[in-house]
């Protein structure tokens, strides 16, 4: 029996430790972290500055107006817009004014010519690409500015993409059974597990109080609790990369 027990322990360790081998890998780098945000402002005006990849985007938002400045070492673009839809785009001493409600094709063409080959705009695009998975409000604010600049240049696809992204619900519908990259430490995994099983326990108690008077429902409550508890248990094993210690 001792032999069987020792074989069992070895096989058990092999099973639960397999996750840790999968988990070993380089930590993921959040690309959005390369961008430095600075917020500030007064009671009537909010300011946001984003710096990264050699570009500096500053935004001043008032009750009725928004002023955006996109600048790199040798180029700068200024955008002034107001709540009525009037927009002014300026670069290298030239400017164009247009009404976003009318979308005059001639004005849009002028705006496109004005910003053609702009290093500031290209750098802003690269900056936006790094913020693809960034959900911070500052990043969202920059995305809307990017959408506005592109809408001024006649490209509505960017604005539509931003709108879709903001409208899309967050993809978090299930508890992951295993991790492909080690993102959590065992103590963090355990803390989450402890709070989860405590919630399940309370739900189970409530289920018994609410439905145990129905014949067979106590067994249903127990089954539901057991399935959820087991899922949470195997999750914490996977999260910890093996033995949950």
């Amino acid at each position, binding site marked *: 029996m001792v032999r069987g027990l020792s074989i069992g322990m070895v096989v*058990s360790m092999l099973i639960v430790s397999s996750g840790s081998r999968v988990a070993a890998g380089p930590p993921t780098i959040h690309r959005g972290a390369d961008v430095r945000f600075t917020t500030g402002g007064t009671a009537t005006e909010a300011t946001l500055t984003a710096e990264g990849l050699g570009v500096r985007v500053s935004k001043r938002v008032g009750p009725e107006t928004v002023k955006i400045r996109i600048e790199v070492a040798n180029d700068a673009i200024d955008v002034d817009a107001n709540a009525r839809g009037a927009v002014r785009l300026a670069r290298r001493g030239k400017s164009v004014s247009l009404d976003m409600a009318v979308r005059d094709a001639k004005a849009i063409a002028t705006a496109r010519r004005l910003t053609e080959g702009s290093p500031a705009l290209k750098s802003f695009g690269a900056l936006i690409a790094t913020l693809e998975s960034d959900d911070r409000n500052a990043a969202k604010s920059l995305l809307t500015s990017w959408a506005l600049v592109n809408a001024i240049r006649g490209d509505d696809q960017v604005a539509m993409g931003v709108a879709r992204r903001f409208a899309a619900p967050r993809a978090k519908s299930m508890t992951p059974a295993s991790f492909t990259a080690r993102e959590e430490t065992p*103590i963090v995994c355990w803390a989450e597990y402890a709070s989860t099983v405590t919630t399940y326990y309370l739900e189970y108690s409530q289920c018994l109080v609410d439905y145990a008077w129905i014949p067979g429902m106590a067994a249903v409550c127990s089954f539901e609790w057991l399935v959820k508890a087991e899922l949470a*248990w195997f999750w914490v094993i996977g999260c*910890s990369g093996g033995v949950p*210690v």
Partner: protein
Amino acid sequence: MNRALWLLGEIVLGLMVAGALTAVAVPVLMRGGWEAGPLAGGLALGIGVVLCVVVGERLRKTRRRDRLS
């Protein structure tokens, strides 16, 4: 039944028993003012697997003895 398969069953069952044990123990301990750490999870895992292997082996031997007698 194949002994290795039986053993695998014992281990898997042990993992599940450990899960149920922890799911009961952690909220009860928290209610009692005790903060169960991740070590408690490892302990529950060990207890569950050892318990299931011990009980499973006893059961397997009893079955074999009964079949032979």
